[in-house]
């Protein structure tokens, strides 16, 4: 039995995550969704120590391209300097702190602080200080560039930052998640995916950890997404489990532990994929094109790998707050905790750079059927999370969430509607919190 204790908390000594293999029980304290103290502590224990998603290389294609975003509670500039090198700069003037780049995105020759006029090059170095002669002799411009995030590393064009200088390298950190990123990237003939124009940014009035659970929890589909299932049926897609199978959904998938708190679902596809798995919603005229995409996959990667990519869908959660859903379309979604009961969600669509306009349009259409704040499914997820958050106001009287589904089975036999993969997240979260108790 392992127990985690919330020291210094509003309720010292109260265990947060309790797993008992012998009793087949796994519970999470509802206090972790409401406590300000736990919220502050996880900023330090989780977000200041883990690799946090920053952006994709396709967002800063050309020298001078930049995107400003909030990452792990800090304002950052994700940019490519005039010499082509990529940076993660903390967006705060070294003089008196104002953000030096106030636009969402663009192409810059330099970053200009509107407060006193200090100017920085796109590599962060300090370029100009008005009336520099009034500074003391020891004033060293060379040491006053914009501060870079302590660590910046990429895997297959996905850039991450880490505020812990001593963290393991990204490659080691991602562990088994890399193979699942590869399944996404291999959809492009040249291995180049791109973030598609248009971002979805919306708030959920719930704790961020609930969206990790929700993103990979296939148990909720029947209840939460009843209207989406109905839409798919109305559109001629078979959504029924095989007779006598005992399944909740048409196919049985797996919930997989990828190490270091990363996890994924891995499901035989029944809901269509713009990559080479046709469903009626795409229209008859799309059949030949989908076949052609499949042929390209097979020629390039072989039958087995092509089937692996095209015939499975996977919701991948990279600890702590990045989700790549390779399902009805590919979405890259990360979320930033703002308060115990509030998160900002940012979501993009991802597609192969080679896609034709028709293929891109089909991908985007498929995306919106399920995902996003105007989709047929995501708004109900948001509601589910907000309902859960509301319920947690009674955490003192009703203190535990139950995550024991599938515990009678081995860890490597967990299905996508079990909770084995959710337990992977909680164990990692608990372990990190313990080190910062």
């Amino acid at each position, binding site marked *: 039995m392992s127990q985690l204790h919330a020291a210094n908390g509003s309720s010292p000594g109260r265990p947060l995550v309790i797993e008992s293999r012998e009793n087949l029980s796994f519970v999470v304290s509802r206090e972790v969704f409401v406590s300000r103290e736990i919220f502050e502590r996880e900023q330090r224990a989780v977000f200041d120590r883990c690799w946090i998603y920053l952006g994709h290389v396709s967002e800063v294609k050309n020298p001078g391209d930049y995107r400003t975003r909030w990452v792990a509670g800090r304002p950052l500039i994700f940019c490519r300097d005039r010499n082509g090198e990529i940076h993660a700069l903390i967006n705060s003037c070294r003089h008196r702190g104002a953000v030096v780049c106030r636009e969402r995105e663009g192409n810059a020759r330099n970053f200009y602080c509107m407060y006193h006029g200090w100017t920085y090059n796109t590599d962060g170095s300090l370029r100009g200080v008005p009336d520099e002669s009034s500074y003391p002799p020891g004033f060293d411009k060379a040491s006053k560039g914009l501060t870079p995030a302590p660590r910046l590393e990429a895997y297959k064009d996905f850039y991450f930052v880490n505020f812990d200088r001593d963290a393991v390298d990204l490659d080691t950190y991602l562990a088994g998640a890399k193979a699942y990123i590869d399944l996404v990237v291999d959809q492009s003939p040249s291995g180049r995916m791109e973030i598609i124009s248009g971002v*979805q940014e919306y708030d959920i009035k719930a704790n961020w950890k609930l969206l990790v659970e929700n993103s990979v929890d296939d148990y909720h589909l029947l209840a939460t997404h009843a209207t989406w299932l109905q839409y798919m049926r109305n559109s001629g897609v078979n959504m029924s489990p095989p007779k006598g199978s005992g399944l909740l959904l048409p196919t049985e998938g797996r919930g997989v532990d990828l190490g270091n708190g990363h996890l994924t679902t891995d499901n035989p596809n029944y809901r269509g994929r713009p990559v080479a798995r046709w469903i009626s919603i795409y229209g008859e005229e799309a059949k030949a094109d989908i076949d052609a995409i499949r042929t390209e996959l097979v020629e390039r990667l072989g039958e087995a790998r092509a089937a692996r990519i095209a015939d499975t869908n996977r919701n991948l959660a990279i600890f702590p707050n990045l989700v790549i859903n390779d399902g009805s379309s590919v979405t890259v979604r990360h979320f930033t905790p703002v308060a115990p009961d509030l998160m900002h969600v940012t979501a993009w669509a991802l597609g192969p750079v080679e896609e034709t306009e028709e293929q891109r349009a089909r991908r985007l259409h498929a995306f919106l059927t399920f995902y996003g704040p105007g989709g047929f499914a995501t708004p109900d997820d*948001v509601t589910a999370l907000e309902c859960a958050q509301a319920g947690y106001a009674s955490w003192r009287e009703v203190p535990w969430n139950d995550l024991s589904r599938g515990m009678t089975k081995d860890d490597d036999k967990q299905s996508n509607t079990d909770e084995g993969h959710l337990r992977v997240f909680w164990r990692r979260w608990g372990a990190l919190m313990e080190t910062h108790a």
Partner: protein
Amino acid sequence: MNKPLNGADTVSRAEVEDLLYGEADLLDSWKLDEWLTLLTEDAVYYVPPNDKPDSDHRTTLFTIADDIVRLRERVIRLKDPNCHAEYPPSRTRRLITNVRITGVDGDTVTAAANFAVYRYRRGEPAREFVGHYRYRLRRVGGVLRIAERRAILDAHELGPMGSVSFIL
């Protein structure tokens, strides 16, 4: 008015206003099947993303980009008690102003209007959706119908608006 209004005598602003105000009433009353009768058989409904309000849904990820098939399915979903985001249905109130005819081309009229939509749910602060509509209207059998409605939000992000789970 920038464009010459050839055939402007065939449509008046009052007629466009009547259509838009009537539509707002049906949507606020959740009379969604009746609302569908205001649309042409090939109608489309768009909510562009907040960061790219002038973009094309075929190349840019929108918040909503419904063809008529998915739009009818959206209404089926909205009427279902299992549409959890809108159950019980939000109370909404639309204020539509600054209605202008922006072009007339044969049977097709383009029009613009500003909107403020207030969405209320029990126990929650009001959510305000502010922006402008761009309509493409077409006369079908003598009656002006909606062929395209595009709701363009002014906010830089959806943020506290959350989901666009009702028809904006």
